[in-house]
C-alpha cells in the first residue's frame, strides 16, 4: 500500500533523497539553491539518514565534492537551481566525462540577468549538451518517481552517466499537492546498493581518474559517452517498466495524452503539461481533436519515437520555456523539427517561447495555441513559426 501524502515538489524531492539514503550529499544550502538541501540536512541532523552531508561554500564545490565522492566509490547526490547550476558548469562536464552516475535534483529557474529567481528552463537548456541524462517532471509525484528511478538508470553498467531530475521552480517546487509515496523498505529494495566496478578506494585495483586525455584519446572517450547516452534509452524503458510493476505508475520517454486520434497537438515539458491536459479535456468536450505529447526524457532525446508519435498530426506547436536567442527557435522545437525532418515526416510545426522568468501560463493562453493550430490546419498557411506566448508586445 502506498502512502497518501501532501508535499511540495521540494519536499517530494527531499523525501526521495531521504529514502534513497545516498552515501554523500554535497550542496550549497541557500539561494540560488532550493529548500531541498535544507530539508535534507534536517534528515541528516535527525539521524534519519546516514548520509555524509557536505555543506560546501559554492555550487562549483558541490559538484566537485560529488565528483570526488562518486569517483571514490560512493553514491552521491546534489540539488540546485538556476545560477547555482551555472556555477557548477565546468564540473558538470567533468562529471559526465568521468562517467560518474551522480544524481541531481534540478528545480528549473531562470538564469539571471536581469536578476530573476522564478521558473523557466534556461538553466536546464544551458547544460543540454553536457552529457547528463535529463528527466522532466510534470508535478511533485513525477519529481519523486523520477528520482527513485534515477540511480537505477545512471548506475547501469551500460550507461554510467550522471542524471538530473527537473521540475518547475515555484510552480511545482513550492506548491503543496497530493502525492503517493512508497514505503522506505520498498524504495531501498528498488534502488539497491551501489556497486561500482572501478573506484578509487579499491585497494585491489589502483586506478587514475581524470588524467590528461590528449588528441590520441579524447575523441574515443567522447564517442563512448555518446554510446552510453544511446544505451540509456533501453535502460530507461527497462527501469520504468520495473517501476510500473512496483507502483502502477507508467513512464516512458514521453507521455501521449489523447494523442492517438488527435489532429492538433502541443509538445511541452514539466508543469505546463498539466495545464495543457486540462485544456485538451475542455477542447475534446467541444469536439476538437486536441492532444498533448509531454516530453519526460529530454536527454537522451527520443528523436525517432517522437517523430513517429507526431507523424499523423495536421499541425503541432512546441512550447519552449527558454528562449535560445538564436533567431531560429527554442531548443525543444529545434530538436523536434530535426527529428521530424530526419524521419521524413512532414507536419507543420510552430514554436512558442513562453513562461520566461516565472510569467504565469494560463489555460486561456494554451487554448489560444490550439486555436492558432486550427487556423494553420484550415488555411494551410504557416507564417512566422518562431512565436511568443504571454509576452507584452509594447
Amino acid at each position: 500500500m502506498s502512502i497518501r501524502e501532501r508535499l511540495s515538489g521540494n519536499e517530494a524531492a527531499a523525501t526521495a533523497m531521504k529514502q534513497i539514503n545516498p552515501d554523500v550529499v554535497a550542496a550549497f544550502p541557500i539561494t540560488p539553491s532550493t529548500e531541498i538541501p535544507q530539508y535534507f540536512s534536517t534528515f541528516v541532523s535527525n539521524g534519519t539518514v546516514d548520509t555524509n552531508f557536505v555543506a560546501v561554500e559554492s555550487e562549483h564545490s558541490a559538484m566537485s565534492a560529488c565528483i570526488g565522492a562518486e569517483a571514490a566509490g560512493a553514491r552521491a547526490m546534489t540539488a540546485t537551481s538556476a545560477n547555482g547550476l551555472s556555477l557548477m558548469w565546468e564540473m558538470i562536464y567533468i562529471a559526465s566525462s568521468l562517467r560518474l552516475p551522480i544524481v541531481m535534483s534540478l528545480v528549473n529557474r531562470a538564469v539571471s540577468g536581469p536578476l530573476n529567481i522564478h521558473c523557466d528552463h534556461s538553466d536546464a537548456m544551458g547544460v543540454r549538451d553536457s552529457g547528463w541524462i535529463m528527466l522532466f517532471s510534470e508535478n511533485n509525484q513525477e519529481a519523486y518517481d523520477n528520482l527513485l528511478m534515477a540511480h537505477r538508470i545512471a548506475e547501469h553498467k551500460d550507461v554510467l552517466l550522471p542524471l538530473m531530475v527537473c521540475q518547475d521552480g515555484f510552480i511545482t517546487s513550492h506548491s503543496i499537492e497530493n502525492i503517493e509515496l512508497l514505503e522506505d523498505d520498498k524504495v531501498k529494495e528498488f534502488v539497491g546498493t551501489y556497486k561500482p566496478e572501478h573506484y578509487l578506494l579499491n585497494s585491489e585495483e589502483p586506478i587514475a581518474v581524470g588524467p590528461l586525455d590528449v588528441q590520441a584519446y579524447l575523441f574515443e572517450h567522447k564517442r563512448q559517452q555518446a554510446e552510453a547516452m544511446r544505451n540509456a534509452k533501453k535502460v530507461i524503458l527497462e527501469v520504468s517498466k520495473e517501476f510500473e510493476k512496483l507502483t502502477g505508475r507508467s513512464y516512458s520517454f514521453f507521455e501521449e495524452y489523447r494523442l492517438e486520434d488527435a489532429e492538433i497537438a502541443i509538445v511541452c515539458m514539466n508543469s505546463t503539461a498539466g495545464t495543457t491536459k486540462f485544456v485538451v479535456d475542455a477542447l475534446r468536450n467541444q469536439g476538437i481533436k486536441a492532444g498533448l505529447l509531454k516530453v519526460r526524457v529530454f536527454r537522451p532525446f527520443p528523436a525517432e519515437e517522437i517523430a513517429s508519435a507526431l507523424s499523423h498530426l495536421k499541425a503541432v506547436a512546441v512550447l519552449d520555456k527558454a528562449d535560445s536567442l538564436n533567431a531560429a527557435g527554442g531548443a525543444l522545437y529545434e530538436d523536434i523539427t530535426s527529428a521530424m525532418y530526419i524521419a521524413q515526416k512532414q507536419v507543420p510545426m510552430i514554436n512558442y517561447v513562453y513562461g520566461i522568468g516565472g510569467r504565469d501560463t494560463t489555460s486561456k493562453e494554451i487554448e489560444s495555441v490550439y486555436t492558432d493550430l486550427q487556423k494553420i490546419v484550415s488555411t494551410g498557411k504557416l507564417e512566422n513559426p518562431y512565436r511568443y506566448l504571454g509576452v507584452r508586445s509594447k
Partner: protein
Amino acid sequence: MKDVIEIRWHGRGGQGAKTASLLLADAAFNTGKYIQGFPEYGPERMGAPLTAYNRISTTPIRIHSNIYEPDYVVVVDDTLLESVPVTDGLKADGAIVVNTARGEDFLKEKLANCPGDIYYIDARKVSMETLGKYFPNTPMLAAIVKVSGIMTDEEFLKDMEGSFQHKFAKKPEVIEGNRKAIAMALQEVKKVTK
C-alpha cells in the same frame, strides 16, 4: 460543495496568508480531497501585497496556473481594498471574505461592484481576544472554511487540532489560543445584507 473550488488569498507580507493557504490545503487534504496550495512569490517584504491560492477538488488536479476566476476570495487586510483589484474574476455565485472592523457600509461602498456575496469578520478582535496578539490568518482560515463549506465546523475543528499539534510542536503555549481563535471565528463571520 462543487467538484473544484478555487480560492484566492490577498494579504500583506507577514500576515500569514501563505501559511493560511497551506493550512487550508492541509485541512482539505485530511478530508480526502485533492489539493493545491501555492503562493505567488515576489519580492518578499513585510507589508507588501501578496497573493496565495488554493484548489480543492474531488478529482486529481492537473492545471498549474494561478487562479483568475476564483470561487472565493479572502482578503486578510482591508487596506488592500483600496489598492488591489481583489474581486477581479470572482464568480457571481462565489463570495469574498474580508477581515475588517469597519462594518457593512464600508464594504458596500468599497465592493459596490462585487459580483458575489460579501462576508466579513473582525479578525483583529478574534485574534486579540484569543491569542493576545494580532495574527489574522487563523481567524481568516476559519472564516473561509465556514463560508465555502469545504467541511463542517466539527471536521475542521478536529482536523486543526492535529495540524496545530504538528505546526506548533515547539510552541505548545499558542495551541490553546489558536484553537479558541478558530472556534470563535466560526461564529463571528457575518454576511453583508445586500
